[in-house]
């Protein structure tokens, strides 16, 4: 890590942006003070923390572990403020019966929102414990010292948190007035402590929702339609019902599933059920070759994301135009989506690897036509999801099957083709840029993008975003797709360049109704927009006859942005206007995630095999300024992963279609980066992708505007 910055001021700036985004909250009208992070909507101390008689603390968070290490980081924050060792912190996460409602775990907001809430709440609880100890020890609070959950008076007498536990009453709202530790006081925060979840994951411990075994548990599988919106006309019920182990079939409108005693029986029964099912109608899928033409022809809602009129473009300016395209991408989780459900005494319990137990419960309640209080959603980790994949949908599948066998729990796991064909993809996008340079400066920047929605998740007010709910005999409405508003943005995330440009216009052509189901894939529109913006910067630099690094610095006044670029140039030994040797070359990319979070610069080495046309990225180097870092190795792990995954997206991935259906069905039809191909990542970047476009141009003189198949 290049100079991890422990800077509370910067952290507070990030929070300020969040506050602005929610400034219409009705609480303001009631005169209630706005509280930091997720405290705003979960104000009671006991929503977050419980002090136990054993001297431990139980921490409750609505944010969930997706493999990003968040529970370890949140535990570090809580332990730090409570002055407890990490081993005496128990984390409870994502349970509608027990934890705060923090919406979805998405948008890289967990440290900012849940972490801030825990920091403030823990500081307050620690102060309460000290006050209680002061009374008990007959001292004043400022005379006491705290270490390892033990409070000591100057005379050497002590009392532990466990002894104070019965007396500390957290059943009240936080004041949010207790000042937490300063960064210079941190002992645990900022340390690369080992992740709490890894030991179980390398020893076959019960680590995942897939590993939950309930007494008398049955197994389920579902049969998806061949096309979105297809109607189930008939099934061969008799052929399936007599198969070994079949407990029941569930057909509700065009939803179809089977329940069996054993898992392999469910897989066989699903195949038979699928073979005998007759479907009609449904939405025709695009042809792979016309995806982009189709995007440009669909109905759009147009907004100007940002605009600035500068002076008239000088006649001597060089004009540059480019169009960039991003295909539909799959989340392609290694573990297909899985959920367990139980329907007992009119109430559902659902175990899910959803990113948001509360929004999921809302959509489940609508779909199952029960009150939300009749459903408890409990999070259990799944395979990495990288956004909204099938995790929410399979939870409804499991609940629909469990409803048919009251009192028995049902475990449903999607098969590989279910996941590939029926997860909502990251939207295909088209980006058109026009620009002009004169005297080494960008004098004009026009940018338009076309994209479907990126935030199609449960929790919408006007319908349900669970796949099966649209196919039931009494179907739920598909909510109106909305773009996630700026400054974070959805399709237009990072579409506004961070560079100083005197005259620009950024237009977002948002496509609410897409021919393919799409939702949130890691970084939303930022992947495509950063690719386009950074490639275009290189094209402009080339037109200006300037070095890509120098050209970027010439258009950046933000000192933190400049710092990461200057640092990476030093780190990799960037030489002015360096060019590749025809086979190997390097390119630089820069972004500030969401235009308001971490600053990242990446240099990627790229190799081109002129014979096969194959492009490789053998090495990528990154410099990141992420502000306050809770767990440096956790950040590095995420950055390495983000780089490697985005190299995979950029070099290899594309969901292909034919009119009959999705062609991506397995790892052969949707290949991803393999162990042989993975680049060495020297140092980390935050949720951006190694910049292959510029490197390809620098290497072989051809610009990369769309990955060739």
């Amino acid at each position: 890590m290049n100079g991890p910055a422990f800077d509370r001021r910067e952290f507070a700036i990030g929070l300020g942006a969040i506050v602005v985004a929610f400034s219409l909250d009705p609480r303001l009208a009631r005169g209630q003070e706005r509280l930091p992070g997720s405290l705003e909507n979960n104000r009671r101390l006991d929503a977050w923390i419980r002090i136990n008689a054993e001297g431990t603390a139980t921490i409750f968070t609505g944010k969930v572990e997706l493999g990003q290490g968040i529970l370890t980081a949140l535990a570090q924050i809580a332990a730090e403020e409570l002055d407890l060792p990490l081993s005496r912190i128990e984390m409870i996460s994502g349970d509608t019966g027990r934890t705060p409602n923090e919406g979805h775990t998405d948008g890289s907001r967990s440290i900012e929102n849940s972490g801030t809430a825990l920091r403030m709440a823990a500081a307050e609880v620690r102060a309460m414990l000290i006050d209680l100890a002061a009374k008990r020890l007959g001292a004043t609070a400022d005379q006491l010292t705290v270490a390892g959950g033990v409070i000591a008076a100057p005379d050497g007498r002590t009392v532990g948190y466990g002894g104070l536990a019965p007396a500390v009453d957290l059943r009240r709202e936080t004041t949010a007035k207790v000042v937490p530790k300063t960064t210079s006081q941190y002992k645990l925060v900022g340390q690369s402590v080992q992740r709490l979840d890894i030991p179980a994951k390398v020893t076959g411990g019960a680590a995942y929702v897939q590993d939950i075994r309930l007494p008398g548990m049955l197994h389920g599988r579902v049969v998806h339609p061949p096309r979105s919106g297809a109607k189930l006309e008939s099934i061969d019920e008799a052929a399936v019902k007599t198969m070994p182990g079949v407990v029941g079939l569930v057909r509700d409108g065009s939803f179809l599933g089977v329940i069996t005693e054993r898992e392999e029986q469910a897989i066989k029964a699903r195949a038979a059920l699928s073979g005998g099912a007759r479907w009609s109608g449904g939405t025709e899928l695009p042809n792979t070759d016309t995806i982009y033409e189709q995007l440009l022809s669909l109905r759009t809602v147009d907004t100007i994301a940002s605009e600035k009129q500068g002076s008239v473009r000088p006649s001597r300016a060089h004009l540059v135009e480019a169009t960039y395209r991003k295909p539909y991408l799959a989340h392609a989780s290694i573990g297909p989506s899985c959920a367990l459900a139980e329907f007992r005494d009119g109430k559902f319990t659902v175990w899910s690897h959803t990113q948001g137990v509360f929004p999921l419960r809302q959509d489940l309640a609508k779909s199952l036509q029960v009150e939300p209080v009749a459903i408890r959603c409990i999070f259990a980790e799944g395979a990495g999801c990288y956004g909204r994949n099938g995790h929410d949908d399979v939870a409804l599948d499991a609940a629909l099957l469990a409803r048919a066998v009251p009192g028995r729990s049902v475990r449903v796991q999607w098969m590989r083709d279910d996941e590939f064909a029926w997860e909502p993809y990251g939207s295909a996008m088209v980006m058109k840029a026009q620009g002009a340079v004169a005297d080494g400066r960008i004098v004009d920047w026009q940018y338009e993008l076309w994209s479907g929605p990126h935030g199609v998740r449960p929790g919408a007010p006007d319908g349900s975003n669970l796949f099966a709910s649209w196919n039931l005999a009494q179907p739920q409405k598909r909510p109106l797709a909305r773009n996630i508003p700026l400054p974070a943005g959805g399709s237009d995330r990072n579409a506004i360049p961070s560079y100083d440009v005197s005259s620009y216009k950024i237009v977002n052509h948002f496509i609410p109704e897409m021919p393919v189901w799409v939702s949130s894939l890691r970084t939303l529109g930022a992947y495509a927009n950063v690719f386009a913006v950074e490639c275009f910067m290189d094209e402009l630099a080339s037109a200006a006859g300037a070095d890509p690094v120098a050209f970027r610095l010439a258009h950046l006044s933000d000192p933190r942005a400049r710092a990461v670029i200057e640092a990476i140039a030093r780190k990799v030994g960037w030489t002015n206007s360096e060019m590749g040797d025809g086979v190997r070359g390097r390119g630089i990319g820069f972004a500030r995630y969401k235009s308001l979070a971490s600053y990242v610069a990446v240099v990627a080495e790229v190799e081109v095999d002129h014979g096969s046309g194959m492009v490789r990225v053998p090495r990528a180097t990154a410099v990141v300024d992420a502000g306050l870092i809770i767990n440096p190795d956790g950040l590095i792990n995420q950055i390495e992963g983000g780089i490697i995954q985005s190299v995979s997206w950029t070099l290899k991935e594309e969901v292909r279609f034919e009119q009959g259906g999705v062609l991506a069905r397995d790892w052969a039809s949707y290949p991803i980066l393999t162990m042989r191909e993975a680049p060495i990542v020297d140092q980390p970047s935050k949720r951006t992708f190694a910049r292959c476009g510029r490197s390809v141009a620098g290497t072989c003189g051809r610009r990369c505007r769309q990955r060739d198949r």
Partner: protein
Amino acid sequence: MATNLTVNGVSRSVPAEPDAPLLYVLRNDFELNGAKFGCGLAQCGACTVLVDGKAVRSCVTPISTVARSEITTIEGLGSLSKLHPLQQAFIDEQATQCGYCINGMIMSAKELLDRNPRPSEQDVRAALAGNLCRCGTHHRIIRAVLRAAQASGRTRT
């Protein structure tokens, strides 16, 4: 129909058809979590176990074909209280993100180290080329396997 299987040294009769894939029997009858369902097509490697020392894809292995074999899962390598060098190395390198693929990585690496105790980075990449990781933990996984090889080498000498 029942088949007798020996897993991690424990023999048990399981009430499954002979063509039942080993993966589901390991997970549901032996109640072992290590081997994971990833694709059911022998493409991703998440379900990898050792059968008589060889790494196989349990998702496409009918139980009838392994009834006379010694089956070893990741639980058979080591436990929280007594970690195998590979498990220890994956913790030391913090070589997981979601960790769903890691069972397969460790079991394939076990087979590699058994036949080649001092692999190069390229050897590790080749041995794990059929194991897919989506989180992008590739480099840490490679480092962990090399670290385990070094640790094992020290133990032997």
